[in-house]
């Protein structure tokens, strides 16, 4: 936010206080506007409270879905890769087992 805009914000807040002061000390407006002021103050200072946690929440929601999606097919395919018959004997006798075959989906 530019310096001019910050000055505008301060002027606006000041005018609100002034208006309520002129209005016979009916400053209840401050109590009503407190949440807005509390939210705007850090933003004007370019602070975004809770942003890091929010981004972590977003990432946390998207990551497991991807993980599950990747795991599910691999576990299904792993069943087809269990060595049987001659391959089982070869694998058990070999010092180094043969490379796993590529999966073509």
């Amino acid at each position: 936010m530019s310096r001019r805009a910050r000055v505008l914000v301060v002027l606006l807040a000041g005018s609100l206080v002034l208006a309520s002061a002129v209005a016979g000390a009916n400053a209840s407006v401050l109590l009503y506007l407190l949440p807005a002021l509390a939210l705007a103050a850090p933003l004007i200072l370019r602070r975004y409270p809770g942003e890091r946690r929010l981004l972590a929440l977003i990432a946390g929601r998207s990551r497991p879905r991807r993980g599950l999606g990747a795991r599910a097919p691999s576990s299904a395919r792993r069943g087809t890769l269990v060595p049987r018959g001659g391959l089982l004997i070869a694998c058990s006798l070999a010092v180094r087992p043969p490379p796993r075959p590529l999966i073509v989906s």
Partner: protein
Amino acid sequence: MSSQQRPRGGGLPIRRGHAVRTAGSLAGVLLALEAAWPEFASAHGISGLASLPVPAWLFAWAAAIVLVVSFVALSTLWSSPRLQERHVRALGRVPAALTPLCGLIGIALFALVVYAGYEGVPYYTANFDPTFIYVIFWVGVPVASVLTGDSFSAFSPWRATARAVRWAARRLGVTRTAPLGYPGWLGRRPVVGGLLAFGWLELIYHDHDNPVTLASLALAYFALMLAGMALFGIEAWSERGDAFGGYFNLFSRLAVFEVREGVLYLRRPLSAIADLEIEPGTLALVLTIIGVTTFDGASNGVVWNTIGPHVQSIFSALGLGPTPADELSDSVGLLIALAVVSAFYALGVRGVQSVSRRFPYRRLLRGFAHTLVPIGFAYVLAHYFSLLVWQGQAIGYLASNPLGRNANLFGTAHWHINYNVIDSTAIWYVQVAALVLGHVAGLTLAHDRALSVYRSRLDAVRSQYWMLAVMVTFTCLGLWLLSDVNT
């Protein structure tokens, strides 16, 4: 954790401790103010709302918490744009005879307004016109539009008349196209001008309840609309040049129903608002709706009733009589309300722009303008709900006796207004609910638009911090105005 961290995406370093301290200091100062002047908390007692379990200002805090929770929920659960495309489902055909029938009803009601204005008694409580125009037409039709869709376009007397003339001309073999194309630069500006004029008439003009004045203005408006439609075409003028048609059409976009080419469709909620074409005057239109309603609230409250006489004395000192001085001071108040509302939105968008310099300020101003539409409706509903519920009942006996001359056409002339139909506490809850729901809808629209505008999720989230601040400000302002009126 260190006190200074750099966010992902290469943003500015965040000093969390400083931000928390700033917010805490602000809250501390304000609470100290409250402690210094305890009347802050007690002087705003709301008449008729004494049964509220907590002070009224706590509702503003609770509303702000609801908005913050909505913001977090939207950020985490709403991960891709869902409102930027139209999703409609056809429900069935609308009977062809329905539109002419609605038009006929609209013309009949208009004729009644004109007749009652000139022939009825000149008392606003006994004449049909003031209640019908200021309550049923001005407040009831927007509510009906949000519930049923753009029903006013079917009932619009000037549009129905123009369509009837066109139909008759075609039957006689006369076909004629509009001589002029609607100028693009004009956009929705005529709607803005019309709404400002009507708002001024209702809230500021001293003789606004005079039935003769209302009937004359209605006739003048009718003639103006017919001239506009003759020059620019019926549909083009109805959507852009007709102040009331444009106003009701804007709110009808909040409805889940729409009629196109004789077919009734069900559409995804809020999708028609996201689809709103931001023409010249569109932003001014939504700001005018909120600004006029804001002034209506403020003019009945403590603040303007304290400041207004000072402004009026300035005009009186210039040699103006009491009535023009009063009207001029209220006009200044209306302009101040418009300026305050516009400044809140402009500052919020300035903040949005500070997140990423990719988008020019004006583009963002227009890009998020549609988010103010549900807020505009929330303001209208919250401020006029009691008027609609209480004064709206008067139409029951005025329909039987529209001229106020002891007629009893439908046997309902003996009806009266039942003020016990809803108590003021329930009205307060409805007002709070309307404001909160309207602002949550605005936040949803802003979030959806941000997802489609920003490539970086960080930028989208940060931009929505600013829109959250705008929504919380409008919510708190609206609740304060309502409580101030009731003080």
